[in-house]
């Protein structure tokens, strides 16, 4: 029986009422008295020396308040990078300066050169056009392999080269891995590109800076997934504002997909300028601006090799990846191709020896950082593609080859430094095959053939590391932050609760799911619980939302805080009923004394806490409010099996997805409807990557796909009706809810299923095509079939 409230119920998303009726409060809805507007003049060349920025004419234009250039930021810090990777020789990565406004050079199309603050947005833009620039163009560094060649033009003159780091993982295993390849009965090799993507959240970025002259407090309203992180990075590293004088508010945020994790120049600028001008300063990105200033995702070029013995057991895996950093290091960029990618290369398989090499490269392109899945989709894609290719080369069934190599015993320590706590990969594969009617495939293929279409079936598994992350571990790996989460639970006198969480919802449904947990623990109605998030002034220090961490880490903090509340409430109840604390039970919002018919209601206890007339004041304080910080013991490891069936039109190369099925193990599920929605969204983005999306630069560093005229977003009619299932649950063993996280799975697991299916279709059609790089646009598929 489906539950109708609490954990396991598909409670309707309460936030949708405001999102769907236009009553949300987004950053752009915030307008302050006396607000001025900023327009950023951005570089239209990819690489050049900034000889002169002449603002004299522009400064006299109507409405101009002040024009800022790089010179105004000389004494100010640059944008910091939150993760330091150590290279294979034990040296720190090369870390270039990242000024708020360009100094000396421009390094990508979109690099901000000057900021015009004016009375209106149009006046700011008009004046920006009157700024005279003298830019001496330099050769653009675009191709990663060219960029790391001896003598290549340098993106950063003061660095040794364009190589940020050359990372080997696990370096000590390299010799053993190479040896295993020498001894292998079969080696499958695949070269592939995991193409650059633009996140494209529905709401573009916005920032409003404010400064209170009377108190000296600064406030930044911004489109962020993690306001506390922005407060820390911007306050401590860029502007030198102590945290108690800086408030960061991220109100309703319309999607992020990773791109709103990072601290951006525009945020620092608006906060800085508000103080300099003593008036609020607002910036609203246009969609065109978003394409050239939001951090991009993916952009890996990889060679992967899989070694097998004569019985088709995987014996070793070796990868060689070039990862594009873009022109500057975005906040978490260095961690994505390393610790979020290399550590997942075992996938669901017991390959004993793995070596991952990643060369991170600077180029004259927009910075690349985490995008839904971040590193894990790149790992999954190459692994699941090379396994499929191996199955084909060996003439074995791709499902059987996978099953044969599945990890079946848990906990399992991989050769790439992580320990999977639990999972059952055969169970999700079994469930998947039930969902897709594989036996009926041949009949469906014959039907497709009647209309001249090639049908193909593709399958893959995935694993991800979510619930990011144990602080001590990530600290060892180079993180410059802890990755715990926090919650304060405040119970009011009349029994209602407000939960202040450090997690940040930008569409995920926290306002609905978190109350389900708290209400269930106490046995009260979900309506009695309200969630507050997104404002550093009224939430405890938290690390925000990404890496499918909100329920696994943030939810665990809420559980811990609620446990503290319940413990204290039991003490009060014991006093009220003159019983011993150990005998008090809480069920359905009633405190009872075991073995008696005595009871007091939740509301009586909360009232007593705030009206302590009859209260154990000598033992406990009045009031009912508790805070907990939760630092996870391990990552969580959601996993699953995905299958895709496609039809390819051989005349045009057009791929149609006939069906897509996802069998996921997310551990325990709090709200099945929200989980289903997250998987649907993830699949849409993963299929978007597989078939449609791709950011492309020309050799001069101009972004060719700089608008929706050329950057293809997935639309509803590009997608089939998904079959999703999460009944194969192996609960996480180390967090109190047994949850694993579901936000990224769809985007991680789906691209290989689609590409495997298309290759299958082409092979069945007699085309000797072993790989096509994404996106599998009609033009590319046709080209692959026709040489």
């Amino acid at each position, binding site marked *: 029986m489906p539950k109708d409230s609490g954990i396991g119920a598909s409670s309707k998303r309460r936030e949708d009422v405001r999102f769907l009726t236009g009553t949300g409060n987004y950053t752009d809805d915030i307008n302050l008295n006396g607000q001025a507007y900023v327009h950023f003049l951005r570089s239209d060349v990819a690489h050049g020396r900034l000889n002169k920025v002449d603002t004299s004419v522009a400064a006299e234009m109507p409405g101009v308040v002040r024009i800022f250039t790089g010179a105004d930021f000389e004494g100010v810090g640059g944008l910091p990078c939150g993760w330091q990777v150590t290279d294979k020789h034990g040296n720190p990565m090369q870390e270039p300066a990242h000024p708020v406004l360009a100094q000396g050079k421009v390094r990508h199309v979109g690099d901000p050169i000057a900021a015009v603050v004016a009375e209106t947005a149009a006046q700011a833009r008009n004046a920006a056009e009157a700024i005279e620039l003298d830019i001496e163009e330099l050769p653009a560094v675009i191709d990663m392999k060219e960029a790391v060649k001896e003598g290549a033009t340098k993106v950063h003159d003061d660095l040794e080269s364009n190589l940020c780091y050359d990372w080997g993982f696990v370096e000590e295993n390299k010799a053993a891995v190479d040896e295993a390849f020498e001894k292998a009965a079969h080696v499958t090799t695949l070269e592939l590109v995991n193409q650059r993507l633009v996140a494209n959240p529905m709401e573009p970025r916005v920032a409003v800076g404010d400064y209170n002259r009377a108190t000296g407090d600064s406030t930044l309203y911004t489109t962020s997934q993690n306001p506390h992180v922005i407060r820390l990075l911007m306050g401590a590293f860029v502007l030198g504002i102590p945290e108690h004088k800086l408030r960061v508010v991220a109100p309703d945020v319309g999607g992020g997909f990773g791109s709103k994790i990072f601290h951006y120049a525009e945020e620092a600028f608006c906060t800085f300028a508000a103080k300099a001008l003593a008036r609020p300063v607002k910036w609203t990105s246009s969609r065109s601006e978003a394409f050239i200033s939001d951090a991009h995702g993916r952009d890996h070029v990889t060679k992967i090799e899989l070694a097998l013995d004569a019985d088709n057991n995987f014996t070793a895996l070796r990868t060689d990846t070039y990862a594009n950093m873009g022109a500057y290091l975005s906040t978490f960029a260095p961690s994505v191709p390393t610790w979020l990618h290399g550590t997942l290369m075992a996938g669901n398989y017991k390959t004993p020896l793995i070596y991952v090499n990643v060369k991170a490269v600077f180029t004259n392109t927009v910075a690349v950082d985490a995008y839904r899945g971040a590193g894990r989709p790149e790992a999954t894609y190459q692994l699941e593609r090379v396994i499929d290719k191996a199955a084909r080369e060996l003439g074995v069934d791709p499902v059987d080859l996978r099953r044969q190599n599945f990890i079946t015993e848990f906990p399992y320590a991989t050769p790439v430094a992580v320990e999977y706590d639990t999972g059952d990969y055969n169970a999700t594969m079994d469930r998947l095959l039930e969902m897709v009617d594989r036996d009926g495939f041949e009949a469906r293929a014959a039907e497709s053939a009647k209309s001249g279409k090639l049908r193909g079936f593709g399958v893959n598994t995935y694993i991800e590391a979510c619930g990011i992350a144990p602080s001590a571990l990530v600290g060892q790996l180079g993180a410059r932050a802890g990755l715990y989460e926090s919650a304060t639970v405040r119970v009011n006198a009349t029994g209602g609760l407000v939960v202040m969480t450090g997690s940040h919802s930008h569409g995920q449904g926290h306002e609905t799911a978190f109350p389900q947990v708290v209400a269930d623990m106490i046995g009260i109605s979900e309506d009695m619980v309200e969630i507050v998030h997104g404002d550093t002034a009224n939430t405890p220090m938290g690390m925000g939302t990404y890496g499918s961490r909100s329920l696994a880490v943030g939810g665990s903090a809420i559980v811990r805080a609620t446990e503290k509340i319940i413990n204290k409430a039991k003490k009060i109840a014991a006093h009220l009923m003159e019983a011993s604390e150990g005998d008090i039970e809480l069920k359905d919002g009633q405190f009872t004394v075991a073995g008696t018919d005595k009871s007091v209601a939740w509301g009586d206890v909360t009232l007593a806490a705030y009206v302590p007339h009859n209260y154990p004041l000598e033992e406990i304080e009045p009031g009912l409010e508790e805070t907990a910080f939760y630092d996870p013991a391990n990552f969580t490891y959601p996993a699953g099996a995905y299958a895709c069936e496609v039809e390819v039109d051989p005349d045009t190369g057009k791929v149609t997805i006939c069906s897509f099925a996802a069998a996921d193990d997310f551990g325990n599920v709090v709200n099945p409807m929200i989980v289903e929605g997250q998987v649907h969204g993830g699949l849409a983005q993963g299929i978007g990557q597989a078939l449609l999306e791709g950011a492309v630069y020309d050799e001069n560093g101009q972004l060719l796909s700089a608008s929706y*005229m*050329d950057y*293809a977003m997935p639309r509803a009619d590009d997608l089939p009706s998904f079959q999703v299932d999460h009944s194969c649950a192996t609960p996480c063993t180390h967090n109190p809810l047994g949850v694993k996280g579901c936000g990224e799975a769809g985007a991680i697991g789906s691209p290989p299923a689609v590409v495997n299916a298309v290759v299958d279709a082409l092979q069945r059609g007699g085309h000797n095509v072993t790989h096509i790089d994404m996106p599998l646009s*009609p033009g590319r598929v046709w080209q692959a079939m*026709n040489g």
Partner: protein
Amino acid sequence: MYEFEFKRPGTIADAVAALGAEEAQMLGGGQTLLPTMKQRLAAPAVLVSLGGIAEMQGVCTDDAGRICVGGGTTHAAVAAATAESYPALSHLAGHIGDPAVRNRGTIGGSLANNDPAACYPAAVLASGANVVTNTREIAADDFFEGMFTTALNDGEIITEVKFPVPVAANYQKFLQPASRFALTGVFVAKFAGAVRVAVTGASEDGVFRWSEAEAALSGNFSPEAVDGLSVSADGMIADLHGSAAYRANLVKVLTKRAVAAC
């Protein structure tokens, strides 16, 4: 967008007068012009809207049986009005862009713009339509002069388009995945005496007639008639979405499909 003056005349004559001003430009549905102005790539000082000119609105049939579409008629209105009288044209108009685009965008604006990936030019050329302006009537074969160029003079207003109705016709549009304009589109129109085949989206010279296919189909109106023909990739558009060879292939594939669907 820069500031501009806005005029909304009620007659063609008043529009012509208004367009006499310095840097004046016509506004149809604004679906091309307004985004260009927002990007500050166009900056007319005076914008003369054609939306208020009643004589440029609507669809009727003339004495010769031609379908006459007012130059200011929206795509949605054309789709609705020609569903019975010219289904292929109706289908084409009904699949341009999205509902917002179809409720604003006009036939005159589309033809004047002559985007190499636009749909209407294929219908006009394949139908052998006449483009009527405030000063003259231009045969389709003389109207399109290459990407974004037409026979129109500065300030010349498309007031009407007259479509002869073929015996059978079909438009095959292969979507560019991002914009959903035609990556390539082929309009085949079969008349009593001849077949006309117009191709959009493919050539660097804009919409063109595929005369070899016309000849082959005039003799044998069947998809197989096109089999023996080959389309050269020379001069075809190559971009992110498809190579020149791919577009050449599409021309043939879509032509066969259009004939099969007629």
